[in-house]
Every structure is written in C-alpha cells, then in structure tokens.
C-alpha cells in the first residue's frame, strides 16, 4: 500500500462515517439508519480480500466507536467489522462476481455485523440492548444496507480498481 492508497482509503472511510452520522439520520424517516460504513467495508473486502477487509473493518469500526455521538463501549463496532471484513473477503474467493452475489454478500455482512454488535452489547450489558430491540433493528438495517448497495459498492470497487489497476489479487 502506497501513501496515496492509504490516504484515499482513510478519506473514504472518514467521509462515510461523517455522512452516516451527520446526514443519513435526517434523510431517513426511521430511527434505524443505513450503515454506510459497513457497506463500504464490505465493498473493500470484496475488492481486496480478507486481510484488507479486516484491517479496514477495524479502522472504520473504531472510527464509528469513537466519533460523537457514540456512547457505547468502544471496540464493539471494530470487532463486528473485523469479522465482517474477513468473512466477506473469504467468501469473495468462492463466489463469482455478479450482481446477485454482491447483494447476497452485503445482506449477509449486514446481518452478521449488526447482530455481532448487538450481541457484544448483550454480553457487556451495555444500555438499551434488548432481544426485542435487536429483532426490530436487524431486518430493517439489512434492508437499508441492501438498498445502499447499488449506490455505494460500484463506486468503491471502481475507486479500488483505479488505485491498483494492474494487480488482480486472489
């Protein structure tokens, strides 16, 4: 990874965090907000594989854990996104690139990410996490993230291709 690539990826993650916290909540009418950062992490894992996916997932998750108005125990989104980045990166090797495969990967990643975050909250006894609340939030979040897919994933994939056009890593 050259400096340019690191800067570009960092910038993209920061923009995603800002949009998710500052803009998306006012645009959607429900209290569940599309998890733009998660979709970006999934797209990056799809483009570069498990190692990169987990790394970006950790950084993006930590940003989401620390940026205001986050109030939960820091590290919970980071843990969830590391796992999602890794699993999506691994799954990418087994499936052929297609629209359907992309949607399925995002849906699976969203389900795993939101559930892991909720689960870590239940284990830690963080405030407000109830089984009923989780059952309400997870499907809606999944739907939103899938809706975000056509807007976000092609953009991220195109950006990653421009950053490293020649090398096609496994």
């Amino acid at each position, binding site marked *: 990874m050259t400096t340019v690539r690191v800067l570009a990826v960092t910038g993209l993650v920061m923009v995603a965090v800002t*949009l998710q916290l500052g803009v998306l909540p006012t645009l959607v009418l429900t209290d569940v907000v599309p998890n733009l950062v998660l979709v970006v992490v999934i797209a990056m894992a799809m483009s570069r594989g498990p190692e990169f996916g987990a790394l970006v997932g950790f950084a993006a998750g930590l940003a989401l854990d620390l940026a*205001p108005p986050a109030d939960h125990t820091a590290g919970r989104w980071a843990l969830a996104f590391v796992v999602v980045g890794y699993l999506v990166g691994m799954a990418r090797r087994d499936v052929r690139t297609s629209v359907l495969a992309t949607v399925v990967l995002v849906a699976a990643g969203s389900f795993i990410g939101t559930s892991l975050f909720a689960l870590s909250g239940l284990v830690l006894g963080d*405030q407000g996490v109830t089984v009923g609340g989780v059952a309400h939030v997870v499907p809606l979040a999944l739907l939103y993230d899938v809706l975000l897919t056509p807007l976000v994933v092609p953009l991220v994939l195109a950006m990653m291709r421009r950053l490293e056009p020649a090398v096609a890593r496994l």
Partner: protein
Amino acid sequence: MRPDERRGARRPHTVVALLVLASFTVITLDARPSGDSPVDPLRSTAGAVFGPMETGASAAVSPLTAIPRYFGDVSDLRTRNTELEDANARLESELRTSALARQRAGELDDLLGVTEDEGYRLVPAQVVAIGAAQAFSRTVTIDAGRGDGVRPDMTVLNGQGLVGRVIDASRSTATVLLAIDPDSVVGGRLGRTMELGFVSGDGEIGEDGRLTLELVDDVVEPRIGDTVATWGSRGGAPYVAGVPIGEVTKIESSPRELSKSVVLTPYVDYSSLDLVGVVVGTDSADGRVPVDTAARSAR
C-alpha cells in the same frame, strides 16, 4: 507487499486474529464500570476530528432535510414541484431557507421563554448528528463544545422541555444523552402534588416514545394530564430544576411491585430535534435566585 500464493492464503488468519484481539483489548479497556476510561482521550480526539465534519455536513444538507419537515408529505411536495416547473425552483429554495430561518428564530424565542422564568444562562446549539437505532443508545451530537462553556453533566433543553444531558464534550461539539434513552434516569416531580419519582426512557424515538415515572411514594394517586418536571440536583448537575419533562398519559399499578409505574408522553419530539439550549449556569452561584427584600419593605 506481494505475498506468494501459499503465504497469502495463511497470512490473513494471523492478521484477523490480531485485529480481533485488538478489538477485545479496546472493549476491555473501555468497559470499566467506573467513569474514567483510558479510551476517553481517543474519544475526544475523534470528537475534535469528526465533530466539525458532522457540523459541516449537517449544515450543507439542512435546506434539503428541511423540505419534508416544513412542507409535510414528500409526495405532496413532488406534485407541487411538477406544477411549479423549473422557473420556480430558485425562488422556492429561497423560500424554504427563509422558512427554515423563521422556524429557527421561533425556536430560539421559545428557548428564551423557558430560561427567562428560571434565570438560567443558556448556550444555544444545533443538533448535527443523531445516533442510529443500531447502536441501541439514544444520543445526538450538538455543535457547541468546551469552547462554548459546555461541560459533561449539563442539562440540555429546548422550547418544549427537557432534551437530556451532556455526557461528553470535545472542543467544538458535545454528545447529549437523550432523556428517552433506556439508560437515562431523571429525577422528576409531579406538578400537582410535588411528589418525587424517577423518569426513565424506553428508547423509542418516534411518535410512540414514552417515559416511565416510578414514584417513590406508592400512596400518591397521579392523574392523567399531570405535568412532570425535573426536581433538580445540587449545583444543577446533571439536571437543573423545573424543566418540564412530560405529561401523565397512563397509570399502571401491579400488585407485585410496591410503587406505581406512570407512563408519560414527553413534551419534546425527540425525532425532530433541531435547536436546543445547554444550561451552562444559573444567575446566582448556587442556583438560588435571591429574594429582593428591600423592594418588598419599600412597598
């Protein structure tokens, strides 16, 4: 680095294992029940970086997000837009911005009305970011921070009533825990009988968001329509006294529990928070307004 095939297949596991361990470390460091966490400096750094970015992003889209709020139904708006054609677009957007400005001025007036009676000094602030339901806690970011005199454990209110309290403040932004959060407990007083209780939230931000008042004295009979206001703590932290919280809409008493649980509808609409005020101080040092005895004896 360009790992060969064999190493490339093995290495991710090591990296991922390390990252998972790192996440656990952060969680462990931050999960202490006591107030101080070693992660707090990181958190305020993140606040200093992301706070202004959130403020900017929120300001950039505020005319856009104001549309559904001030013109009601979005579909309604679409029909109207097609009728008015392109020529009206520029004029319309100007109108929207001025309506937004007028609305904000009205909210500021309400805010001043609340504070005039109580003698609080307020810092006005705009809500710039809202925590998602996926995070399971009800918090918002406001665009006033330590630079404006905002500190943790300060009361946040708006023209309607109590919004919540500041739990964290960076240089230019602060995080507010809403009273509707399940983790929030506010000392409340029944307006009619002055009885004390504890108000907690249910985490629902929309129309069906309700607060629960647990009365200390179970003999008290609250009535539907009674007002509940904060009872206030010493030094006004975290809540100053006399801020309206909500109205009694339902009373549930179970034979198992000793105290009654009273359901309140909050005065504040937590889903459309915009302009809020942070109580940064009261006119007198200890929160007491001095009684002017000289004026009375002169009469």
